[in-house]
């Protein structure tokens, strides 16, 4: 098998809260010809919260990660929409804006780095769609889902803002195709492009829940069995968020949430372990019953 190699940028949230996501990616990547090379010493991507405090701090921290990948001579593979947005946007700004680049490089010099603009940033679904290809993903499916009705949750920063997603890479449509090769059905619903509310969790919980409710209402109305996402923030917000909503408004959705990597792993015939099942607050057992063993 020909392997594509990527600098593997894991970020903070996934190792800290969703090791089930990381584990699934590490299990399926080698089987699909993707080699994940660890980025030693890499720091937080500097998301929303950091960008809110200070512009140059954001760029310098994100750029340090880009520099590490540059030194490895590899493009970055990230698993998180927010890491994706932060690293992509920083890469674009520093390539285009010489004055800011010089300012950031003056800071990076203190930690022995310099931004050269020689790396690209991709998210896992990009790599599956563009490098691995639908055909190969499809061939890896050994235990297809039997028409499982899925609400695809792309997450905002997979495609927005358009200006950093040149030519809109995988996008929403491609994610639907990736879901369908597992034998599941991607069901259209009205709030597909809408935000999950996650960024305001911990800052303004009422608003976060109200935004998530709009999304969940729309999914429920479309009659889906479960939600599939590629973003760890969307995962937390839509999974744990359902418990928050239940506590405050008594409304119950009972919609299980899976990472795309988990969906594919199950379809490839690899079972989730007990502790992984338990990281899902809304039980996913009924999804597993829709797998057809070949």
């Amino acid at each position, binding site marked *: 098998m020909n392997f594509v190699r990527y600098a593997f940028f894991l970020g903070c949230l996934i190792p800290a809260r969703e090791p089930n996501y990381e584990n699934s990616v*590490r299990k399926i990547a080698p089987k699909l010809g993707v080699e994940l090379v660890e980025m030693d010493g*890499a720091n937080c991507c500097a998301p929303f919260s950091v960008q809110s*405090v*200070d512009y140059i701090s954001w760029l310098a921290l994100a750029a*340090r990660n880009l520099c590490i990948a540059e030194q490895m001579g590899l493009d970055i593979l990230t698993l998180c929409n927010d890491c994706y947005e932060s690293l992509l946007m920083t890469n674009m700004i520093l390539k285009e804006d010489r004055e800011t680049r010089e300012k950031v490089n003056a800071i990076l010099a203190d930690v022995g780095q310099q931004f050269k603009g020689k790396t690209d940033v991709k998210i896992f679904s990009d790599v599956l769609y563009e490098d691995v290809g639908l055909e190969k993903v499809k061939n890896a499916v050994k235990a297809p889902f039997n028409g499982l009705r899925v609400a695809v949750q792309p997450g905002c920063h997979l495609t927005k*803002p358009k200006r950093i997603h040149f030519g809109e890479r995988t996008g929403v449509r491609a994610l639907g195709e990736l879901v369908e090769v597992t034998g599941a059905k991607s069901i259209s619903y009205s709030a597909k492009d809408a935000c999950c509310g996650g960024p305001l969790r911990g800052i303004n919980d009422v608003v976060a829940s109200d935004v998530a409710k709009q999304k969940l209402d729309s999914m429920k109305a479309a009659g889906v069995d479960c939600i599939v996402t590629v973003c760890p923030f969307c995962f937390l917000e839509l999974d744990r968020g359902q418990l928050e909503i239940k506590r405050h408004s008594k409304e119950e959705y009972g919609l299980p949430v899976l990472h795309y990597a988990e969906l594919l792993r199950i379809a490839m015939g690899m079972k989730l372990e007990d502790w992984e099942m338990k990281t899902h607050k809304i039980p996913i057992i009924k999804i597993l019953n829709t797998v057809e063993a070949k």
Partner: protein
Amino acid sequence: MSSLDAYFMHEVANTPRGRGVLACIQCGRCTSSCPVAKVIVEHNPRRLMEMIILGLRADVMLGPVPWYCLSCFTCLDRCPQGGDIGEAMFAIRNLAVREGNIPEGILTQARSLFETGRVVTSSRMALIQREKCGLGEEPRIDVEAVQKILRKTRFDKLIQRDR
């Protein structure tokens, strides 16, 4: 009504990511596409732009107004003017932080970043789970490099509560 600051619009425009305020024509397309504006009346991006244009500096900077936006960037793709209110939100927040206006949730993440190099640190549960499945310890972060950068940008001073 608080006093007007005629230069406020330019202050925002001259803060990184704030340029878009100069292009706003008050059409309201941002508000009609905003997921937060759909659920609460306190957040209205068009009105926020208007407050900036008019120079209502204190009303914008000293209250909760900068902290309702989700940064979903829907408005960025919808704005017919390249007004970029979703981007300008970061300029407004950067300025608000310098006035000491920073929510506890943001502060917690910022402090964690300075201390550990991560905005989110592991729960004990996650560490046990990592151990169980052979993922091992979390990836190593060069905290010293992170702190060097953040001292240089004076980020550490910005997140001190009692400045």
